[in-house]
C-alpha cells in the first residue's frame, strides 16, 4: 500500500520556479498494476522518483508500507569504475541481502548474458550491456511494488523475448507503477491508470479510458 497525500513538487530553474505537481493524492493498493499517463513534462517521472524516495516533495506526505523498488530504468545507478559484479554486490548489500548474495550474483551474471564482462568495469560496457545488466538486476530482487520508468525490452531478439517473459512473470506476482510512452506496453501490463494533467492526478479504473482522456486533452 502506497499512500500519497497532497503532494506538491516544484523545480527551481534559472528563471523562476515551476510547479510540476500541485496537490496529488493517490492510494495505490498492493498488487495493483498502475499506468502513469501524461504528456511530456507532466510530472510522470517526478512522481515516480518521489514514490521511489529518491526525491522529496516540497509539501505533502508519501508513505510506503511495503517493499518498493528503486525506479527501474535502463541507465542508472552504476559506478563506472567498478565491475558489474561489484555494482550488483553493492545493490544486494544495501537491500540487506547477505546470505544468498552468491545466488543473486549468479542469477544476474547469467540473465544479463555478460559472462566474463561481468568482471570488467561498467564504464567499458556498451549501452546494450549496461541495459542488460540493469534489467537483470531489477529482476533479482523481490519487491512488493516495482516502479518502472520506460524499462522496455532491450538487446537482441532472443534477449528481448526472454526479458519480456521474465517481466510478465514479475507483473503476475507483484504490483507495478509504470511510465511508458508505448500504449501497447501499458495495456499489456496494467489494469488501472493515473492520468497526470496540469499538476493533478486523475484515477481511472481502466487504461483504455485514461488513454482516451489523455488523447482528447492533447488534441483539444
Amino acid at each position, binding site marked *: 500500500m502506497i499512500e500519497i497525500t497532497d503532494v506538491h513538487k516544484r523545480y527551481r530553474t534559472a528563471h523562476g520556479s515551476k510547479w510540476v505537481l500541485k496537490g496529488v493524492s493517490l492510494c495505490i493498493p498492493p498488487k495493483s498494476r498502475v499506468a502513469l499517463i501524461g504528456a511530456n513534462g507532466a510530472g510522470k517521472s517526478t512522481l515516480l522518483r518521489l514514490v521511489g524516495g*529518491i*526525491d522529496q516533495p516540497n509539501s505533502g506526505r508519501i508513505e510506503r508500507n*511495503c517493499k518498493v523498488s528503486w525506479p527501474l530504468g535502463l541507465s542508472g545507478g552504476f559506478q563506472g569504475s567498478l565491475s558489474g559484479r*561489484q555494482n550488483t554486490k553493492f545493490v544486494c548489500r544495501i*537491500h*540487506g541481502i547477505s546470505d544468498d548474495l552468491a545466488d543473486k550474483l549468479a542469477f544476474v551474471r547469467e540473465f544479463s548474458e555478460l559472462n566474463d564482462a561481468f568482471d570488467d568495469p561498467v564504464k567499458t560496457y556498451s549501452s546494450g550491456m549496461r541495459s542488460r545488466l540493469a534489467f537483470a538486476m531489477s529482476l533479482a530482487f523481490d519487491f512488493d511494488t516495482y516502479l518502472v520508468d520506460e524499462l522496455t525490452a532491450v538487446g537482441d531478439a532472443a534477449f528481448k523475448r526472454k526479458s519480456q517473459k521474465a517481466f510478465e512473470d514479475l507483473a503476475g506476482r507483484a504490483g507495478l507503477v509504470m511510465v511508458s510512452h508505448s500504449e501497447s506496453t501499458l495495456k499489456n501490463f496494467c489494469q488501472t491508470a493515473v492520468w497526470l494533467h496540469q499538476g493533478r492526478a486523475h484515477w481511472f479504473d481502466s487504461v483504455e479510458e485514461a488513454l482516451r482522456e489523455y488523447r482528447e486533452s492533447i488534441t483539444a
Partner: protein
Amino acid sequence: MNRTSVRSDVSVAVSVWKALFLREATGRLAGGRAAWLWILLEPAAHIVFLMVIFGVIQHQVRHDANIEVFVLVGVWGFFLVRNIAQRGMDAIAANQALFSYRQVQAVDTVLVRAAVEAFLYVIVGAVLLGALALLDIDVRPADPLLVMWSAFLLWAFGLGLGLMFSVIGTLLPGLGKLIRIAFMPLYFLSSVMYSVSSVPLGLRNAVLVNPITHGLEAMRGGWFAAYRGEAHISLGFLAFWALVTVFLGLALHMRYATRLTAQ
C-alpha cells in the same frame, strides 16, 4: 511468507554503511595499478623529504624527541585530517550515481569515507613505524593512550571538516576550490615539521589558533616523555572544534539533504 515486512531505519543504515565501506575501500585500494602503494608512498615521501632537510641540510638535533618519529607524527596526523576533509568534500559528487537508491543518503558517503580513511591510516601508520623500527629507531610511545586519544580527536576534526566541506563544495563549487587551495598554507601552519615552542612568540599565537597544531603537539607529547611542548597546547581546544564542526556539518547535511542528492 510475510512480504510486507519493512526493515527498520537503523538496519537499513547499517547495511548501507557496510556496502559503502566495501565499495570505497575497493575503489581506494584497487582503483588503478598499485593504487594501494600510493596511499603509503605519499606520507613516506614527505617524511623522507623532511628528514633530508632537517638532517642533511640543517643538521638539526633534537634532544627531547627522535626526529624521525617527530616528523612521522606530524605528517601522518596532518594527512589524516587533510585526506578526510578533502575526500569527504568529493564524496557526494563521486557517489552521485548511487543516490538513485533511496537507502543511500549524502551524509552516509562522507561518514563512510572518513571511516575508510581511518582504517587505511591505521595501517599506513603501523607500516611506517614498522619501517622505522627496522632501521633501529626507538618507536615506542611513552603514553599510548594520549597518542590514541589525540589521533581520534584529529580524526573527528577531519570528519567535521569533511561533513561541512561536502555540503559547501556541492552547493557552492567555487568556494570548494578555495578550500582546496587553503590546505597548502595549512600544511605550514600546523606544526607538521616544527614544534610550536621553536616558533617566535609573535607567530606562535597564530599557529596556536589552528586546532590541528594542538592535536599534533599533544600526540608528540604523548609519544616522547621528555618532549618540551608549548604550555598552551590543549586537547580540549581540538575536542571543542571537533564537536563544533561535526555538529555544524551534520546540521548542514540535515538542512540541505534534498538538495545534495538532487540530480
